C-alpha cells in the first residue's frame, strides 16, 4: 500500500472552523496516517469508489481500480441498486460522458432483449411519446416572440433584467389572447350583424321614461382637424360611438341559422372569463417561485450558499459586464458580512436604544401615512374637478385647456407615482432596518401608492356617478344628467389613463434618459458625473407596467377593445425599453435576484388583478346599468341577465344551480376547505420537525463514526 495515495474522502478532516479534539485524527506533523485496510471495506467508501469509477474520468478511474484490487471483501448486495437505477433512467439524465452513455445504451439494449414483449412495447411506445412531445416543444419554441432579443439582453445585463423583458413578453401575449376572446365573441357578431349578414334584433328600451334614455354624443359634422386629435386622446367626440366603448353595442340577439346568440349574455360571460383566464395563467406562472419561498423563510434569500453557488451568471458573455458582475458580487458579499456583524451587535442593544428606535419608526410611519393621505386627497380633488369641469359638448372640445382638465387625474396620479418613491427612499434610511428589508419595505410602499391611487380614482368616479346633488337618483338609479351613459364615461377615463401612461413612458425615455446619457458622456463637470449614468431600475419599471395592466383589466368591461391597445402599447414599450437599456444604462451594481424577481413580478401582477376585479364586479352587480346606451337597458344591473337566462333552463338544472349558489352549500364548503388547509399546515409542521431531528441524528452519527475510526486506528497501531 503506497502511502502517497489519496485518502478516502470521508476520513480526511482538515481544520474545521469549530475544531475540537474529535477532529484531530492525523499525526501532528500533518502527514496522512497510514490507512488501514479495513477502512476501505466500509460500505460508504465502496459506493464512493463505484461512483468514482464511472463518473470521474480516466485518471481517478485508473487509481481507484488499483485501490479496489487492494480491498479484501466487497459486499455484492450493494452493487444491485445502483446499476438498476442506471438501467431505467433515460440516458440523458446520467451525468456521464458521451462514450460512457453509448456503452450504457448498448447494455440497456442487451438487457431489453430479455424482457417480455409487453414491457418492450410499453417502453418503445413511451419512448416515441416522449420524442413526439420533444418535437412539439421544439416547434413551439421557434414561435416564441423575441427569443434572440432577450438572449442578447441576458448576455450583456444578466438574467435579472432578462426576466423583466420576459415578463413584458408575457403581458403582450396575455393581452393579445384577451383581445381575441373579446373580439370574437362580442365585437365580431355586432360588426357582422350591422352589415346585415344575419338577422339581428336591436335593443328596444322598454322604459316609458324618456329622460333616462336621452343620450347624444357629439362628434359629427365639420370640425377642426385638431379637435379630432383631441378626441383621439380623450376618447370623446367621434371616438365615443365606436366599437371602442360600451355605448356602441346595441344589438340584442343575432340569429345564426337556428342558433340564437344573445349578445348581452356573451358580453358579461366573456368579461368574466377573461379575468379568470388571467388569474389562472398568472398563478400557473407564479407557482414555481411560490414553492421555493414557501419552503424556506425570508432569510434564506440572503443565504450565503445561494450567493456563492448560484452567484455567477453563466449567461454573461461580455467582458465588461463580467467585470461589473465581479465587483457587484464582491460588494454584495462585503455588505452581507458587514450586515451580519451589525446584526450581532444590534442584539446587544440596550433597552433605551430599542425604545428610541421604535419611537422614531413610529414617527416616520406617521409621516409616510401623511404623505399617502395627502396624495390620495389630491387625486380625489383632481378627479372631482375634472369630472365637473370638462365639457363633453362637441363645440368646446376644440379647447386645449379642456384637454388638460380632462387629463388632470392622470397627471396628478403620475406626479404622485414619481414623487412618493423618492420620499420613501429617503425616509426609510432613518428607520434603521437591514438593507435587504429596507429595499423590500420601500417596494411595498410604492406598490401600495400605485394601486391605491387607481382605487381612489375609481371611488371618486363612483361617488360622482351615483350621487345626485339636489334631487334623488331614484329616477334612473344614477346621475343621468351628467352621465347618461356612465359605462362609456368610465371606459373613457380608463382609455385616457392608458394613453397618458404610454405617453409618459415615451416622454421620460426620450427627454430624460437620452439627454442624461449625452450629458454624462460629453460634459465632464463634477456634478454631472456624480449624477452618473443610470442603471435600469427593475422594481420601478415593473410597477409601471403592472399599473398599465391593472387599468386594462378594469376597463375591459367598459371598453372591449382596450386589450388591443394594451397589446400594441406593450409591444412598442418593449422596443423602447430595449433601446434605452442598451444605449443609456450600465449594468446594475446592486444585484437583483432573478428568482425572487420572477416571483415578485407575478405577485404584484396578481395583486393588481385582484384589485381590478373589485370595481368590475361592483360595476356589473351593484351600479344600475345605464338606460340610455348599451346592452342592458332592460335590466336593472348588468348581472341580472344571468338569473334571467338561468330561469329558462330546464327545472332540474335550475334547482341544481340554486342549490350551489345558496348558503346551505357555501358554508359547509367553506368549513371543509378550512379543515383541509389546517390539515396541510399541520402536516408541514410535522415534516419540518422530522427534518430537524434527522439532521441532528446525522451529525451525531458522523461524530460516532469519527470516534470509532480513531479508536480503531489506535488499536491497529498498538497491534502493529
Amino acid at each position, binding site marked *: 500500500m503506497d502511502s502517497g495515495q489519496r485518502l478516502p474522502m470521508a476520513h480526511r478532516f482538515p481544520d474545521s472552523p469549530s475544531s475540537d479534539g474529535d477532529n484531530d485524527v492525523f499525526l501532528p506533523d500533518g502527514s496522512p496516517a497510514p490507512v488501514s485496510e479495513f477502512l476501505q471495506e466500509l460500505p460508504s467508501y465502496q459506493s464512493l469508489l463505484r461512483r468514482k469509477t464511472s463518473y*470521474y474520468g480516466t485518471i481517478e478511474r485508473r487509481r481507484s481500480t488499483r485501490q479496489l484490487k487492494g480491498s479484501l471483501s466487497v459486499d455484492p448486495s450493494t452493487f444491485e441498486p445502483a446499476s438498476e437505477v442506471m438501467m431505467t433512467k433515460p440516458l440523458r439524465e446520467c451525468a456521464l460522458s458521451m462514450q460512457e452513455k453509448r456503452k450504457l445504451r448498448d447494455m440497456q439494449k442487451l438487457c431489453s432483449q430479455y424482457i417480455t414483449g409487453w414491457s418492450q412495447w410499453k417502453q418503445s411506445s413511451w419512448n416515441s411519446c416522449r420524442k413526439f412531445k*420533444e418535437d412539439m416543444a421544439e416547434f413551439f419554441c421557434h414561435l416564441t416572440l423575441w427569443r434572440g432579443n432577450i438572449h442578447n439582453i441576458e448576455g450583456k445585463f444578466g438574467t435579472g433584467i432578462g426576466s423583466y423583458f420576459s415578463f413584458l413578453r408575457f403581458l403582450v401575449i396575455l393581452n393579445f389572447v384577451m383581445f381575441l376572446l373579446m373580439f370574437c365573441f362580442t365585437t365580431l357578431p355586432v360588426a357582422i350583424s350591422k352589415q346585415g349578414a344575419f338577422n339581428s334584433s336591436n335593443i328596444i328600451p322598454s322604459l316609458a321614461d324618456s329622460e333616462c334614455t336621452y343620450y347624444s354624443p357629439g362628434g359629427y359634422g365639420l370640425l377642426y382637424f385638431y379637435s379630432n386629435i383631441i378626441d383621439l386622446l380623450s376618447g370623446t367626440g367621434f371616438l365615443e360611438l365606436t366599437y371602442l366603448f360600451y355605448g356602441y353595442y346595441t344589438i340584442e340577439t343575432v340569429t345564426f341559422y337556428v342558433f340564437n346568440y344573445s349578445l348581452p349574455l356573451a358580453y358579461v360571460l366573456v368579461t368574466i372569463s377573461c379575468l379568470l383566464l388571467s388569474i389562472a395563467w398568472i398563478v400557473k406562472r407564479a407557482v414555481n417561485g411560490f414553492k421555493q419561498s414557501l419552503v424556506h423563510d425570508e432569510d434564506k434569500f440572503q443565504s450565503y450558499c445561494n450567493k456563492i453557488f448560484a452567484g455567477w451568471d453563466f449567461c454573461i458573455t461580455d467582458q465588461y459586464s463580467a467585470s461589473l458582475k465581479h465587483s457587484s458580487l464582491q460588494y454584495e458579499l462585503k455588505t452581507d458580512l458587514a450586515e*451580519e456583524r451589525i446584526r450581532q451587535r444590534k442584539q446587544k442593544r440596550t433597552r433605551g436604544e430599542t425604545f428610541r428606535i421604535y419611537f422614531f419608526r413610529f414617527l416616520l410611519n406617521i409621516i409616510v401615512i401623511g404623505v399617502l393621505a395627502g396624495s390620495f386627497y389630491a387625486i380625489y380633488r383632481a378627479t372631482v374637478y375634472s369630472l365637473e369641469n370638462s365639457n363633453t359638448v362637441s363645440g368646446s372640445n376644440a379647447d386645449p385647456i379642456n384637454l388638460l382638465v380632462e387629463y388632470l387625474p392622470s397627471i396628478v396620479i403620475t406626479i404622485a407615482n414619481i414623487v412618493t418613491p423618492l420620499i420613501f427612499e429617503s425616509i426609510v434610511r432613518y428607520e434603521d432596518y437591514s438593507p435587504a428589508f429596507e429595499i423590500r419595505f420601500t417596494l411595498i410602499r410604492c406598490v401600495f401608492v400605485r394601486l391605491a391611487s387607481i382605487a381612489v380614482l375609481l371611488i371618486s368616479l363612483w361617488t360622482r356617478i351615483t350621487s345626485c346633488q339636489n334631487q334623488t337618483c331614484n329616477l334612473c338609479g344614477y346621475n343621468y344628467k351628467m352621465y347618461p351613459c356612465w359605462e362609456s364615461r368610465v371606459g373613457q377615463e380608463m382609455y385616457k389613463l392608458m394613453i397618458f401612461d404610454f405617453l409618459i413612458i415615451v416622454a421620460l425615455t426620450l427627454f430624460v434618459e437620452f439627454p442624461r446619457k449625452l450629458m454624462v458622456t460629453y460634459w465632464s463637470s463634477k456634478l454631472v458625473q456624480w449624477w452618473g449614468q443610470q442603471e435600469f431600475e427593475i422594481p420601478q419599471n415593473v410597477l409601471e407596467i403592472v399599473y398599465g395592466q391593472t387599468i386594462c383589466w378594469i376597463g375591459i368591461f367598459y371598453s372591449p377593445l382596450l386589450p388591443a391597445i394594451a397589446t400594441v402599447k406593450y409591444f412598442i414599450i418593449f422596443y423602447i425599453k430595449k433601446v434605452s437599456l442598451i444605449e443609456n444604462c450600465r449594468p446594475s451594481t446592486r444585484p437583483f435576484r432573478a428568482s425572487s424577481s420572477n416571483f415578485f413580478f407575478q405577485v404584484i401582477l396578481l395583486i393588481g388583478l385582484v384589485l381590478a376585479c373589485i370595481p368590475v364586479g361592483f360595476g356589473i352587480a351593484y351600479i344600475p346599468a345605464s338606460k340610455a346606451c348599451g346592452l342592458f337597458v332592460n335590466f336593472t344591473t348588468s348581472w341580472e341577465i344571468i338569473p334571467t337566462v338561468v330561469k329558462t333552463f330546464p327545472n332540474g338544472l335550475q334547482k341544481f344551480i340554486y342549490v350551489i349558489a345558496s348558503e346551505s352549500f357555501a358554508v359547509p364548503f367553506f368549513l371543509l376547505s378550512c379543515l383541509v388547509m389546517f390539515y396541510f399546515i399541520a402536516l408541514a409542521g410535522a415534516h419540518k420537525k422530522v427534518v430537524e431531528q434527522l439532521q441532528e441524528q446525522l451529525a451525531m452519527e458522523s461524530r460516532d463514526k469519527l470516534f470509532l475510526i480513531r479508536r480503531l486506528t489506535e488499536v491497529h497501531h498498538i497491534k502493529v
Partner: protein
Amino acid sequence: MGNSSSHLSKQLINEYQELTYLTKQEIILAYKRFSEVAQKDNRSNIESLRIPKERFLNLPELKANPFNDRICTVFSTSEQEDGSMSFEDFLDMLSAFSESATLEVKSHYAFRIFDFDGDGALNESDLEHLVNKLTGDKDDTKLSNSEMRQLIANILEESDIDKDGTINHSEFQHVISRSPDFISSFKIML
C-alpha cells in the same frame, strides 16, 4: 475536404438528440461553432478532432467566465489530461448547461467544477478558491482574511449537515435544491 464532411449525418444527430438535452437546431449550431474554432485543422472526421484548451477558451461564451478552465477540465475526456475538448465533450457541456437539463445533472457538474482539487468534496481551500474566482481573482478584489473566514464559516454552517468540515456530493445537492437561482444562472446558450 469533401462536402460530406461539413454536415453531420442524420443518424448521428438523432443519436445526439437522444443522449443529450439539445435540440436538433442546437446540435447543428454547435457543430458550426466547433468547426469554426477548429478551422485550421482538417475537417475530415469531426468526431476524432480535439481542440486544445487555449483555443477552446476563446469561445465568446467561455471567455468572460471565471470557471472556463475548470469547465474544460471537467468535460474533457482526453487521455492526456490536457483539457482538450472533442466535439462530443462540447455537446456534453452544452447539454449540461442547457435550459432543459435537470437539476441533478446540473448540480452534479457544478459540484465537479467547484471541486478545484478534485478530491470529491468541497473543503475550505476549494471554497476559498471559489470565492476568489467570483470576486475577480485579483489581489485588489479579494476579500480580507477575516471576511473570508467568516464567509466560509457561514457557508459550512448552512450546508455541512454531518459537520465534518467538508461539503460532500449529497450535501451539495441538498443545498442546491433549495437555492432558487441556481437553475437560471447555470445556463449557457450559444
